[in-house]
């Protein structure tokens, strides 16, 4: 582990509602006001309808999903992470191909497979700052 603390997300004008919701342990995903599709992360232009003024509304979703891939991080280039830890690439049930990458809290020895169900959890990393992560649903 590299000494130091985990990097914290710095909210900006376009992301503040996401991190405010996360602090309450709610996953609020950007939803285009024109076409209603979710985008993560929210882009300048809606990935789905092409609106240049998507006026995203951060909308709570359940956060359940399935594992598409994973990696065991045995070395991290960032400070503050205890290695090894597992990262999972999750497709959320909320929308086809809506993907979120997060830590798997079950630990590095968890037996994983593509398609395994996961639930959303949050890691409280600093006062008022929580980061989305995942846990195996059947564990």
């Amino acid at each position, binding site marked *: 582990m*590299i000494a*130091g*603390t*985990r*990097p*914290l*997300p*710095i*909210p*900006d004008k376009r*992301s503040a509602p996401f*991190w405010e919701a996360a602090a309450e342990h709610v996953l609020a995903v950007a939803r285009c006001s024109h076409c209603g599709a979710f*985008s*993560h*992360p929210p*882009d300048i232009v809606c*990935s789905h309808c092409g609106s240049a003024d998507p006026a995203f509304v951060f909308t709570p979703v359940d956060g359940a999903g399935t594992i*598409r*891939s*994973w*990696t*065991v*991080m*045995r*070395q*991290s*280039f*960032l*400070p503050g*992470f205890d290695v090894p*830890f597992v*990262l999972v*690439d999750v497709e959320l049930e909320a929308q086809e191909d809506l*993907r*979120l*990458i*997060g*830590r798997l809290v079950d630990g590095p020895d968890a037996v994983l*497979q*593509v398609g395994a169900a996961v639930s959303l959890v949050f890691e409280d*990393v600093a006062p008022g700052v929580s*980061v*989305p*992560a995942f846990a195996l649903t059947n564990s």
Partner: protein
Amino acid sequence: MEASNRVAIVGYAQSPVTRHADQTLGGLTVETARRAIADAGLTVAQVDGFVTASLFPSAGAHAAEDGVSLVSANWLAERLGVNANYAAGFQGFGQIPGAVSMAVNAVVSGAADYVLVHRALHNPQGSYHQNPMEEAHGSQQWTVPQGYFGPLAMIALAYNEYLQRFGATREAMAAVVSEARKNGARIPWSYWFEKPLEAADYLAAPMINDPICRFDCDIPVDGVAAFVFTTAERARELPHRPVYVAGYATGAPVKRRLPLHWPLDDIMEVGAETSRRLWERSGVRPAEVDLPQVYDGFSPFVYFWMESLGLCPIGEAHRLVLEGGIDSDCPGALPVLSGGGALGNGRMHGVPQMLECYLQLSGRAGERQRPNPSIGVACHSSPHFGGAVVYSAQVF
């Protein structure tokens, strides 16, 4: 396309590839550029176009300084003392095909008569990608707080998908990496000259980000390569046999994702579009390519490119490799790493692929010369973000 076979490479130079050069990167670049121009039978004053892609591809906190950690086209033209008609940089991914496409278009349009394309790569002191950041701003706020950072994790997710989907083994990848290192060990300027890697050593290496180990990654280096481009007409008056650019493809539209999130389906679906453009624009079919040079900055790209280009069916590259199908010493095999690639030379981006196409198609590969290759393909980066160039020994 209109520009097909109208522009040729007429000379080159490659610096030694070292962990840390004695010389500043800019000095090494000026020297290499002068050698390439002389190799083409030209004087510096005749070269009126300069193109590069100057990206310093580190995720670390190193300063990016022109002439020190990167070298822009304008910097080089100024230091060579040339009043260039055209000096430009390619900003996208697939830096080598992107820069080649700009050079081709500058020559065809008459913006410049002789264009020097260079690529200068630097290995800073300390860890290449380590970053002490405490705050994640902008796009990094979506992934860094979770610990998802750097290109190893990026390729690990895509490669694990490939392993799970197609049942590929580490033994197959050991064959890929040892093939790259076998060929790199024969190249005098390579960092890995006379240092092949046995499959057993690959298999014994510990994981960094599963399923990626150290030997799946090219090693950061200091190194510079330069190539001179001009019209097919002018090329005939110069000392070396020209190698023509038949076509190129870069910049297929990618899905917008989290930073550094490259799912396997994105790579393969957009890679198919990259390849479709490449074959259509060059007027070449995959079966006509006798010198495919796939990109291998991370070893899984070898599979992704072989399959995207249509050199083998989707999901089959790992089997082909295990059967000796990419052994450059085996007649009838696909010599996809005959130039050693990035794994066999060091982190020279797409330079080894381009250089192998040039050397083999111009008949200048020396002891490594293959019998009468006619069509080469030089790939760079991922099939979905990057690009490729088709080179030909003949105008067709």
